[in-house]
């Protein structure tokens, strides 16, 4: 191994330790509201999330992941005022913590979740997602996360990659009428099939994917600032692991190697991003003053101003979502060696 690589590996090791220390330091920022972690069995698949005012999505979110085989949800509620906390506390498979601290200063919730992962995640398959992200993967209609993780275990693979696919409605967001009882993906049925660009992140070695509808509509003038779409949401956790920035990158860096450099052997998934419901407009408005979501929030002011008006994201080449087969055929995810 060249000296430079060794030096970088050494630096990354210290960086990871600093993150662990930071997580430990912030451990008292979250207070348990409802602790049901005693119900976690050694093979339970855990789901970690930070939420804020997500009543429009949560019932669908929980239902989606229960069906996929998540056994226990560990959720941090960041000061919701729409009944999210009460709803979650009433669910039998949810353990709930709450905090009033800054989401941005807690590395967008990663410090809080890091502490929960450190305590409860060790040796479990841990899924870390936002309330507006619905994971799908090859054969998702007939196989579940238990099957998927057993397949990965059999191959000694400890992390599973996915890209965020932004789902949007046809017509202006402002005009959308969404019935909370209906399937989210029937309202947000459209996506951009392939305007993604990839490169390898020079430091963390993850595949850095940008593009999609936000790139097309909001970030054309500053493409280098467009949101990152690649994520590593599902990991066989070890207490030494940390997420660096959201779930885009991890340390140790080998966990970021979720893509295949030569062949097409790694099974990968897609996170359907259900952000563009009408509630994005008040949220964007709030974000303009609250400034909790991005580094360099100033850069995103125009983005939020534009979003607050409920724009139309649809274009004639938008594709209608019809299930995982379509996503594998388009190449957005791959069956890899899991036929």
């Amino acid at each position, binding site marked *: 191994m060249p000296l430079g690589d060794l030096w970088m590996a050494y630096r990354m090791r210290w960086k990871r330790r600093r993150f662990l220390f930071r997580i430990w330091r912030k451990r008292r920022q979250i207070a348990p509201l409802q602790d049901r972690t005693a119900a976690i069995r050694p093979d339970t698949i855990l789901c970690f999330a930070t939420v804020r005012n997500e009543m429009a999505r949560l019932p669908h979110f929980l239902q989606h992941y229960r069906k996929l085989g998540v056994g226990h949800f560990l959720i941090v509620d960041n000061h919701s005022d729409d009944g999210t906390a009460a709803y979650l506390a009433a669910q039998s498979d949810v353990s709930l913590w709450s905090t009033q601290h800054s989401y941005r200063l807690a590395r967008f919730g990663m410090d809080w979740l890091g502490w929960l992962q450190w305590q409860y995640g060790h040796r479990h398959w841990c899924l870390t997602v936002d309330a507006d992200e619905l994971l799908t993967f090859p054969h998702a209609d007939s*196989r579940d996360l238990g099957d998927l993780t057993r397949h990965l275990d059999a191959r000694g693979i400890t992390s599973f990659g996915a890209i965020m696919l932004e789902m949007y409605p046809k017509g202006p967001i402002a005009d959308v009428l969404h019935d909370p009882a209906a399937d989210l993906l029937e309202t947000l049925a459209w996506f951009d099939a*392939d305007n993604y660009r990839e490169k390898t992140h020079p430091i963390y070695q993850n595949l850095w994917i940008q593009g999609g509808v936000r790139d097309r509509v909001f970030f054309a003038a500053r493409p280098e600032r467009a949101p990152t779409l690649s994520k590593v949401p599902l990991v066989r956790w070890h207490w030494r692991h940390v997420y660096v920035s959201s779930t885009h990158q991890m340390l140790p860096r080998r966990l970021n190697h979720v893509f295949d450099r030569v062949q097409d052997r790694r099974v990968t998934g897609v996170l359907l991003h259900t952000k563009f419901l009408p509630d994005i407009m008040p949220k964007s408005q709030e974000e303009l003053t609250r400034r909790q979501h991005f580094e360099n929030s100033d850069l995103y002011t125009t983005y939020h101003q534009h979003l607050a008006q409920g724009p139309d994201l649809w274009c004639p080449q938008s594709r209608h979502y019809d299930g995982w087969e379509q996503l594998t055929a388009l190449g957005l995810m*791959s069956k890899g060696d899991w036929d």
Partner: protein
Amino acid sequence: MLVHTAFDRAEQMIRHWSDAGCPVVVHVDRNVGQATYDAFVAAVADLATVSFSPRFRGEWGMWGLIAASQAASRQLLAQFPDIRHVYLASGACLPLRPVAELQAYLDARPDTDFIESVTTGDVQWTIGGLDSERFTLRFPFSWKRQRRLFDVFVLLQQTLRLRRRLPKGIVPHLGSQWWCLTRRTLTAILDDPRRVEFDRYFRQVWIPDECYYQTLVRLHARHIESRSLTLAKFDFQGKPHIFYDDHAELLARSACFVARKVWPRADGLYARFPRPPVEDQAQPEPHTGTIDRIFAQAVDRRTNGRRGLYMQSRFPFMDRENGFTAMPYSVLQGFDDIIPDLADWLTAQTRVIAHGHLFAPDRVYFAGGGTTYQGGLSDNARLRDYNAKMFLTNLIWNARDQHQCFQFGPSDNQPIKWMLTKDTQASVWVVTGAWAVSLFRSGRSASDVRSEAARLQQVENRFLNALRSPEARSRRHIMTLAEFLESPIDVLQGIMDDMVGHRAATLKKPPAMVDLDGFAQFLQDLKNQGMHPYLAGEFAAGDAMQTSRPRPRKPYVIAKK
């Protein structure tokens, strides 16, 4: 039946075989804890014809599995003197058809041994780079647990050129480890006077369960049917393929008797199979054609990937790729200066997708003139230039069902030029100096356009240098403007043939070209201004350029009689 995990499914299968009247001897791996074992024995205690054999440690690739099946076979043959065929199964083997049909099938073939058994020369069963060396080296170390020792020991034997001698009369054969043998053959193997010698030899062969019975059966059997009655698939790394609920249709169509390895939680498969008996119907032969084909396709996709697709699951090092893009495409430089509605004309002639200037400085000119294109590609020039390579690979991938071509020129943004040069899928046609035609038609005088002409010529020359460099891999066709104007029909015919991949319809007349009256004089004026448009080729001054003049007849030779 060999069992080491998923005991509830194993019990279900034992009951299944036993209910159909088959006595079962079960071998439970010694690594299984005593408590689990006792519970399992107790669970099937009500079945009179089920017994348990002495336990061995059955590690993959090691001798334990053979020892286990030997002991179990002997016990089975001794306890039940009237059985004729012995079927080796595992807890993850699921009968697809009623056991009665299997019994009938075997009754019709009382002397046949079903065991896949092929010589090593005929199969590619290479795992870890070893095929015939499986038989000539010693493998005392476990491949799974003691990998480093295993590798070092193999390397040591290879360097010292150590070879084992095969026992006399033995020809190594390989095959699936799931067999169905007749009592006669199995007894002969177990009671062979040379068995001690054979066992000593096979104990240190690698993966003996794929060769022990497969080899010895050749010494004793009367009639070998060299195929396994158990449908088992392996991926290219030698890992068994696992069947899930969504494989139900595939398995049903295969008409195989037994399949493995079945996912213990595949409730749908366990509920559906074995299928109920069908009355009054010819019993189908097992056939694995469809399933083999589907798996071969999947393996091909995995090993070769999908060319031109750049996504999270496949992100090859671009420069090592032989061709970056999914499909052949054409790049036309200079033609649209001479033929103004070239794109429409090409589409009408060949049905290809003809884009405008994809890399124009102001925006992307997609075919059809839209602001977005397939896959949601944006016409924003900044987005395009941010990663121009990816833009082009995405464009080609998105419309890969059709041939695409686009216009290029020295006034376009040039960073893409190296990709156009190196991509083996690109077919680049250049008419050099054609930019002068546009300048000529702008109506401006030679002195006004002089610096612009010099710039365009310089940019085009750099592109030509790239195309002529040793790194160039694309198909390149370069001609001067003068050469093109001599026989436009031949060139256009060549382009069309290239695009459609075979001989396209013969062109009778060229498309409408711009009027070049006075063009030669324009070039001369440029020269007089001190700017030499050498890329345009030789035009005699005063030569009236007639683009629609009749083609000169081709010279021909009359053969001597």
